[in-house]
């Protein structure tokens, strides 16, 4: 079994079951090492990857996590894709009103809190979550203190003119 596939500019980790989460976290750590991120910044990325991978393993038939380092914008881009049925209660989840059967129900919301940019597209054919973490001294946003968000619009930007959005198709 291949743990990760290396394409030209990204690393892809297939997620089918909960045991694949360890592989996803390992690749996240290695990606952080690659750009010399450690401490809180690395912890944010690994934790967000863990949350996104668990959502895929638990709620969908399978999917993948893509890792990419964008040296131009100095950010790590993580894309979590699945072929599941989509998220019907996205607004409820992102507003913090949802509580999963296992307890905290903060996986997706937590990932949004941790990321510098967050985008989610969900439809009956599947869900794609895209998160970006800045590195290289420009990623100080949100270090340590909770950030305020408005509803599920999810429109976030770390100051480079990009507007990432959230949508339910």
């Amino acid at each position, binding site marked *: 079994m291949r743990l990760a596939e290396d394409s030209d500019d990204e690393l892809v980790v297939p997620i089918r079951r*909960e*045991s694949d*989460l*360890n592989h996803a*976290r*390992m690749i996240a*750590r290695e990606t952080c090492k690659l750009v010399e991120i450690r*401490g*809180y910044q*690395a*912890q*944010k990325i*690994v*934790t967000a990857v*863990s*949350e996104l991978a*668990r959502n895929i393993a638990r709620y969908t038939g399978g999917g993948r996590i893509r890792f990419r380092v964008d040296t131009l914008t100095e950010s790590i881009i993580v894309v979590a894709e699945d072929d599941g049925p989509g998220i019907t209660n996205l607004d409820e989840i992102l507003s*913090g009103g949802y509580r999963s059967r*296992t*307890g*905290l*129900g*903060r*996986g997706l*919301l*937590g990932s949004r*809190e*941790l990321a510098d940019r967050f985008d989610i597209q969900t439809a009956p054919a599947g869900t794609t979550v895209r998160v970006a973490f800045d590195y290289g001294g420009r990623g100080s946003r*949100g*270090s*340590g*203190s*909770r*950030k305020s968000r408005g509803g599920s619009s999810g429109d976030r930007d770390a100051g480079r003119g990009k507007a990432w959005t959230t949508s339910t198709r």
Partner: protein
Amino acid sequence: MDDINQVTCIPLWDCLLVPLHGDVSDEQAEHLVTEVLERIKADECYGVLVDLSGVWTLDSHLCSVLANLALAARMMGANTVLSGIKPEIAMTLEAMGIELPGIETVATLEDALGKMGITRSRRSRDAEDDEFLLGTPLGRGPREDQR
């Protein structure tokens, strides 16, 4: 069960010390709850000390497992104390808005032991060292014959 998922439970008088380390898998977390609860019953434990000093990542699922463990342990008459959460992990949990309701958390394993009423009464293994320490700024000051 695979050895890789084994959870270490160390009996410590009437307490149970559970050190977690590395990348804790979901399977390990699940086994942790079963193992600890069984040990509480078998050993009639009064307290569970879960030390997280060696844990690499603490996500919402693992927090939920620990909260559930503490709740179940309390039902069986045992208090749970978490120790050793790294600063970067604490900051990440805070940023995610995750709390650990109903679980007592302390900085170090020593603090956790203190919470269970286990304190140090012997200064060192070697009595000569004690004599030496007593006469240094680390000790309790000069001995009677040095004053």
